């Protein structure tokens, strides 16, 4: 019954119709073994398979091609993608949900205006100070001029003119 073991993966239930089982014949038939498949067939077939796809146009290979990934790599990539998406989504929701304020539009309008020429006036203002500050260092004081009445003469006629503050109409 070795050949039954050999075929065990392919074992298939027989249909429900009546079949005749000849066990003795079956046992005898099982004595005839088949040789193993040589590895050269496997290699030849794989080579033929690859050649089959090498001759395909590039665009077709691009459209119908697929890649195989080891399961751990695929799982890691999927986890990384999920984590990145989650972080990106979280970052996006931390901002206010309302519409973002639009920056004010800058409008440049040229307005002509007269340029006023600046005049620089230099004035010297003498200020009479009431009293010299005590704290300040005392300036050198010149002696007051002497008034002499020796040449003084009284006027012969006095003419009085009354003026009202410079108003000509009055």
């Amino acid at each position: 019954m070795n050949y039954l073991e050999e075929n065990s993966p392919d074992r298939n239930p027989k249909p429900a119709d009546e079949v005749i089982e000849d066990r003795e014949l079956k046992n005898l038939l099982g004595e005839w073994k088949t040789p193993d498949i040589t590895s050269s067939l496997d290699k030849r077939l794989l080579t033929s398979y690859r050649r089959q796809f090498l001759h395909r146009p590039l665009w077709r290979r691009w459209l119908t091609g697929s890649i195989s990934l080891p399961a751990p790599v695929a799982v890691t990539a999927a986890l990384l993608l999920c984590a990145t998406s989650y972080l990106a989504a979280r970052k996006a929701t931390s901002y206010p949900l309302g519409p973002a304020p639009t920056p004010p539009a800058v409008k440049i309008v040229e307005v002509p205006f007269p340029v006023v020429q600046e005049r620089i006036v230099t004035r010297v203002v003498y200020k009479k100070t009431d009293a010299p500050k005590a704290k300040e260092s005392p300036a050198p004081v010149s002696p007051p001029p002497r008034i002499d009445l020796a040449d003084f003469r009284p006027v012969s006629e006095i003419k009085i003119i009354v003026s009202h503050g410079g108003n000509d109409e009055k």
Partner: protein
Amino acid sequence: MTDERLLEQAASGDETAFAVIYERHRGLVFRFAYRLSQSRETAEEITHDCFLSLIKEPQRFKTQGQRASLRTYLCAAARNLAFKRLRRAGAETAIDDFSEQLAAAESQEPLRLLLDAEVSEAVRKAINELPPLQREALILFEYEELSLAEIAEVAGADVGTVKSRLHRARQRLRMLLAPYFKDGVDINVERCRI
């Protein structure tokens, strides 16, 4: 993963998918081809061509896939390739059933001469004596354990025809291998319902 899905991937260039399909069915195809052709080289060529044609024209299986499994499709492909080679080798007349009495009479003598030879060699030769259609039915039923319906699909015949071929093949083998049975030529059959 199903054969259909694997075939789709293999047909689009997935070498791994192709390897899985090949691993899954190569034994069946090779054994069937070997027992039909009785030649290792021929069986390997048939197996090679069988799988390559599956990849080249997967739509042929898809159109038949409504009713056939991949293994019956592959068996049918192997069968066609094997019979094509038999015809090319001039064995065309042997494909159809011929006079069993005449063939049995002719094969008695060689079998008697093989009494001292290995049993397996005797069985191989006895099976080789069968007409191809009977041989095919016997191999698929007894060795590959396909159901009658599946064999009918592979052979493109109805179940009754397959049953008849199987019955005749067994009768003939009983005669050809009579010296190896304990009870001589008496057919010891056991009726069973599966």
